[in-house]
């Protein structure tokens, strides 16, 4: 309980929000709109899980939004060129992994600070895309939206994919040696190296994984609409990082888990619709989201001060 206090408190806050919605706005839980909202949020959760790994290993990646757009557009163009959907999916995931590998190589091999590297790649991908696409939307052929299935089935697949990614990563972090290594490297990379772990390999790996997950998320987002907006994915990195931080992953690395990330993600994702249902003016949305993030950071700060005393 004490060790997972942060995760419990975020989950508690989420439950509190859901319970008050159940009492004051039971409409919130109508299945179809709820499923639509979850589906729309699912790609962000996938990216948030990847970012969580990167932050756990004491790095950061702010280029995911731009990479997301590049992957979306590439997959969209391939699909528009009548290639089969699986090819487009693989291309998107592969391209994401390559983008992640570029970040990872610069950070792990050249030992550049990840904030600067990913700031550079963020601008590079986004502006490169703008140059190439000039803001033109890509219209997708039939059979791409919802994987060519009925909408409910498609939504089920998207949500299911997000859940599978979440569970697989949570499992790996807890039950596989490599998950332990992520924590070790994030806590103290030099200590990990002296213990025979290869911190740079771990860092490289988490960046590639994040890239691949970004590519997957791009496809999960792509299938939800009939066309691709080349400016998609703006602010995605910030939303994902916010979910991770609210979920109790320490920005200093080495502490946190995906259960907390899920709770933090749902909490932030529920605030916007909750405001509508609770008749709060929507202007408050961003302010409240900001307050929640601030609260989480302050809670971590207080906790750290207690530990250090």
């Amino acid at each position: 309980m004490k060790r997972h206090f942060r995760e419990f408190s975020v989950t508690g806050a989420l439950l509190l929000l859901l319970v008050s919605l159940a009492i004051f706005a039971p409409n919130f839980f109508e299945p179809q709109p709820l499923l639509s909202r979850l589906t729309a949020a699912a790609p962000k959760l996938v990216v948030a899980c990847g970012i969580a790994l990167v932050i756990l290993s004491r790095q950061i990646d702010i280029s995911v939004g731009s990479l997301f757009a590049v992957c979306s557009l590439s997959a969209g163009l391939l699909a528009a060129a009548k290639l089969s959907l699986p090819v487009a999916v693989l291309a998107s995931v592969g391209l994401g992994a390559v983008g992640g590998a570029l970040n990872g190589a610069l950070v792990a091999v050249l030992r550049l600070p990840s904030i600067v590297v990913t700031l550079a790649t963020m601008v590079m991908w986004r502006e490169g895309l703008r140059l190439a696409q000039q803001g033109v939307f890509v219209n997708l052929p039939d059979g791409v939206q919802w994987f060519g299935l009925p909408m409910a089935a498609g939504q089920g697949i998207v949500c299911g994919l997000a859940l599978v990614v979440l569970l697989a990563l949570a499992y790996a972090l807890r039950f596989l040696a490599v998950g332990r290594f992520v924590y070790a490297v994030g806590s103290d990379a030099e200590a990990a190296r002296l213990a025979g772990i290869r911190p740079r390999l771990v860092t490289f790996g988490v960046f590639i994984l994040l890239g691949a997950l970004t590519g997957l998320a791009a496809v999960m987002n792509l299938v939800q609409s009939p066309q691709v907006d080349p400016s998609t994915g703006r602010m995605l990195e910030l939303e994902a990082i916010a979910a991770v931080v609210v979920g109790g992953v320490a920005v200093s690395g080495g502490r946190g888990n995906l259960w907390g990330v899920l709770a933090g993600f749902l909490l932030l994702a529920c605030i916007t619709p909750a405001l509508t249902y609770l008749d709060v003016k929507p202007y408050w949305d961003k302010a409240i989201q900001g307050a929640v993030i601030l609260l989480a950071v302050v809670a971590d700060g207080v906790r750290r001060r207690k530990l250090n005393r």
Partner: protein
Amino acid sequence: MSAVLQLTSVTKSFGAVRALKGVSFELRAGEVHALLGENGAGKSTLIKIITGAHQPDGGTLEIGGQQVAQLTPQAAHRLGIACIYQQPALFPDLTVSENIGLRLESVSVLRRVNWSARRERAAQLLQRLGADISPDAEAGSLSMPEQQLVEIACALGAGARIVIMDEPTASLTQKEQHRLFTVVRELRASGVGVIYISHRLEEIFALADRVTVLRDGESVGTRNIGAGQSAVARCMANERPESPHPGPLPGGEGERQPATRPAVRVPFAEPLTTILPLPSGEGRGEGVRDSRPAGPPNPSTPPITESELIRLMVGREVSSIYPAAEGEPGEVVLALSDLGCTAGGVRHITLDVRAGEIVGLAGLVGAGRTELARVLFGLTPADSGEIHLNGHSVSIRSPQEAVAHGIAYVPEDRRRHGVILEMPIAHNLTMAIHPRLFPGTWLRFGAERSHALESMRDLAVKAAGPDAPGGSLSGGNQQKVALARWLATKPRVLILDEPTQGVDVGAKSEIHKIIRRLAQQGMAVLLISSDLPEVLGMSDRIAVMRGAEIVAMMPRGTEAHAVMAAALGQGRGES
């Protein structure tokens, strides 16, 4: 001798933990008062109370004869209390004079900086310490001892009457230690009360007038230090180099200006805060006791011996300090021939270590001992020479290869690199044996837990349990965890780098017993230590390093001064 600081029955609790249960402590002007105690005895809490970082729950605190309630760090500074920590807290990107200025000048925001006066004062303070440091150097470019000197200059400039030194020699070489001692003696001679915290008994015997021992949050006694010095301390005292210019300042007579230097007024100018010029002839280096100022401590308490002091600290008899070897060492396990690494800073290393043998690596800090360990562990791979393990030539390019060859390295500075503080003890313990304990990539928590419990029992690690984070352990227990992690790899060669640095006396002797036991089980042990008595006591053979090379091999029973002479380069090293 007036008491500049007097604590009476001070108590302090943190939640349910009673850190101080009643500590009485008196510091006189012009004395070096050592504060000694095992880790967790309450030394740091006491220091934090004296510096105003913590408020005591009970008891009284008198500074300069006046009772002080609600001491804050600012008030402590104003009252002339300065603390020099093991790790100096300078701003690395600012110059020395800027650092000194920040500490000493008034803090109003819109004040105009008088750069030349700032620089002048810094230069003057440094010169008084005999420190050859440019005021324009960036603090980050200075070595650790130089940074300490800058801290001391700040204390001097602030007119400190009470200077606290917390393990100041932990990272110093012998030569730097001597210089620091000289500075401390000078402070004493000018009427400053120095509280000196160290785990090294020989330093305390060489430097202190009195010693107060803390145990379990209580002051168990204050004793004089005098005639009953240990062999080690005498040895330390004797081999202290006789400088041709035995002045207290290393620069020699020319820089001292003893007669003409005026008393320096300090900014917070109460009469007591004036630092007096040194009486000439004070603090000369002829012998340790000669340099004591007048006014011996209370003559009714006889001087204490080293063993009495240890007994007082641990409250029990620590049996024969170093465990002896039994039986002959076996086959040569590790053989190095003409090993070198340009980037790593070692060259021409030829050395054998046999099974069951402890080979000590002595030398000054920076002589290449840790560098050699890092080469052997593949952190900075060798670029010349050969490594033979059990007669087979091997190449070690990475820590993974070193581990695969059965080499284990317990690094120095365990707080940073030995134990991952945020991770549970169990995870720390299995860190190096993942491939063996978890074949395939799946973790097995049952196996991990039983391994952890077994290791903790084996080395008597005192902890809440295997799930407690590494950071919750005391220094000695962290070291045991770091050691246990590597023992789990069942190494043939065990390299220990400063295994007892900052560890209290009780845990130290436990760790010594463990090391000897491991050797007895057939491991080849390479022991790096700056604690000379430890190297002498533990090693079957001693390799002395200087300037990246091994300069001498010495048998067990070698005298300390012989080892030190080799480390210093037979008279060339000092003065």
